[in-house]
């Protein structure tokens, strides 16, 4: 039964979802909303599994003084500190007149978000610019025919996305050659390629879903017969 019950639930849920796309009448029409709510509730409870796991793993690392245990200590201190401040300010706000939220501007929780979390996230995202440069340098080296074609396409794309090249050739022609060429590359070869990938993905999702619904694919419940 350990295998059968999850399989039955998966099959029923999968079929109801598929049917609800074509049948708007109750109860099928509401299935997506109802199941979506259930997923949200399960996820909200499940997050504690993750948090407790993180505490256990990092706690063990500190206890055994494994390499990098200081990072684990920072994780625990910041996580517990943020949760504690949020809970304290949440309760204090509930009893205040007028009631306020721990997320209101001026709270310590908001300060942590504004001056610690936000800059750290922005820094990570900003690093993408450097990684794109290094990846582009490797990808655009003209080692073979495909890489050379990529390099040429990239040259025209970048030329079309900044006004400099069109400005340089403006004494010779009024046409925005690079802009038009980059638009053509995006609208035809790129769009065509992306649609081909999208069709393949859609078929792959359908095939995977059928395998799951029919119980052929069981890896997500641990595999086995």
């Amino acid at each position, binding site marked *: 039964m350990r295998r059968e019950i999850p399989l039955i639930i998966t099959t029923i849920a999968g079929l109801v979802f598929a049917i609800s796309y*074509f049948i708007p*009448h109750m109860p099928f029409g509401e299935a997506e909303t109802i199941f979506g709510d259930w997923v949200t509730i399960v996820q909200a409870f499940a997050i504690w599994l993750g948090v407790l796991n993180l505490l256990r793993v990092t706690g063990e690392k500190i206890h055994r003084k494994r390499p990098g245990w200081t990072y684990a200590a920072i994780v625990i201190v910041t996580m517990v500190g943020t949760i504690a401040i949020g809970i304290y300010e949440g309760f204090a706000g509930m009893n205040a007149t007028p009631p306020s939220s721990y997320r209101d501007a001026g709270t310590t929780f908001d300060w942590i978000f504004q001056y610690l979390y936000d800059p*750290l996230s922005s820094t990570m*995202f900003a690093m993408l610019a450097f990684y794109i440069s290094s990846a582009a340098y490797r990808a655009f080296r003209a080692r073979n025919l495909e890489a050379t074609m990529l390099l040429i396409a990239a040259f025209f794309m970048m030329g079309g996305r900044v006004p400099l090249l069109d400005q340089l050739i403006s004494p010779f022609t009024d046409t925005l050659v690079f802009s038009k060429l980059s638009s053509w590359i995006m609208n035809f070869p790129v769009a065509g390629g992306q649609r081909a*990938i999208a069709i393949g993905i859609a078929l792959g*999702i359908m095939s995977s879903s059928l395998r799951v619904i029919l119980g052929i694919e069981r*890896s997500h419940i641990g595999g086995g017969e």
Partner: protein
Amino acid sequence: MPLYRRHLPCRFFTGLVVFFHFFLFLLLAGQAISQTAETPVSSAIDSLKLTDHTPLPPGSISAEDVPDDAGGAIDIIWEVSPDDVPNGKVRSYHIFRSVSLNGMPSEFTKIGEINAGSTTFRDGRAAEDVDNFYKVAAVNFENSNGTLLWEAMSSPALVGPVHATSQWFNTRRVNAFVGVVLLSAIIIFLINQAKSGKNLYIRKIAGLEAVDEAVGRATEMGKKILFIPGIQDMNDVQTIAGIAILGHVAELAAEYEAKLEVPVSKSLVMVTARETMKEAYARAGRSDAFHESQVVFITEDQFGYAAAVEGQIVREKPATIFYQGAFFAESLLLAEVGNAEGAIQIAGTGEPSQLPFFVAACDYTLIGEELFAASAYMSHEPRQLGSLKGQDVGKAVFLVAIVVGIVCATFGWIDLSHFFRVN
């Protein structure tokens, strides 16, 4: 003294009084007119003004149940008022609804308003199984600094009764239904063919052929394998596909006695990945080698997760890294760090926008459909391979349809795109 001389002062004063009264009248009338422009509807002069500004009602009003829906919606359609012209008397239309149980409308309540020039309004909160009556009125008004100075409404036209009903089939999705049934039938047919022992040719996928080599390399080097199942939860089919691949990788790692670690960003993925790995280690006869701490929850935050995994890659320098699942901006952050550390990297995602990054930074990339084919491909199980073959046949069907569509569109015979448009 002549008579006229005697009456002269009298006439003068009489004229003066008449002139004074006439002047006073003009002054008061002028003040009255200037005041009516600033005060609302109540005065007599206002009434005259509103009569002048009241628009004509909209024409030909009809109401109909919205087709192919779950009920509770009615479309009200009308023709614009003759006064609904640029700088005309119509500023908006007000829509009123009345619900009746005895066939006659009761009190009307306003359910919405829409700008001039509009000819339809959808009532998305209509009650089912009752008579719904509607009125639409053209409205003219004037505002000053957000305050309504006056409002003039046309006589509304009545329509009804109308019933909001739900349908048992969405007829606008017939084409999708036919496509799903047809492709499902092909896949199920080929699954049965494979089950009956028919040999099906499946093309080789380089990225999956390299999995053995990648796990073997980690074993030889005595370093870790990292498996990153994306940042989406278990309700995303890409994550399910990623977890399916994890099962095969974990079995190989158990056989080769390589150390496998799975940092995750969702609690449910953590639980599922643990269960999958436990089973995989058991299949390889190495249940004792599996520890729950091999699957670690990091954080649900996208960049927090990326930072933690990047740090792990830099500190521990894994020999092999798998990226299988749904990835977004963190794809290149992770893959470039892995590349810089010299790990062999095999990526797979169904996010087309992230594929170029993985192609640039990884040794092998499973492009879109290959991610979903991976589990079936690696299992070598006939039923799963049958579904793969069905996927290929589906692609062939689409390819033929695209070629026929191009030919038809080029020669202007028929626009086939209508058949593939889904609402």
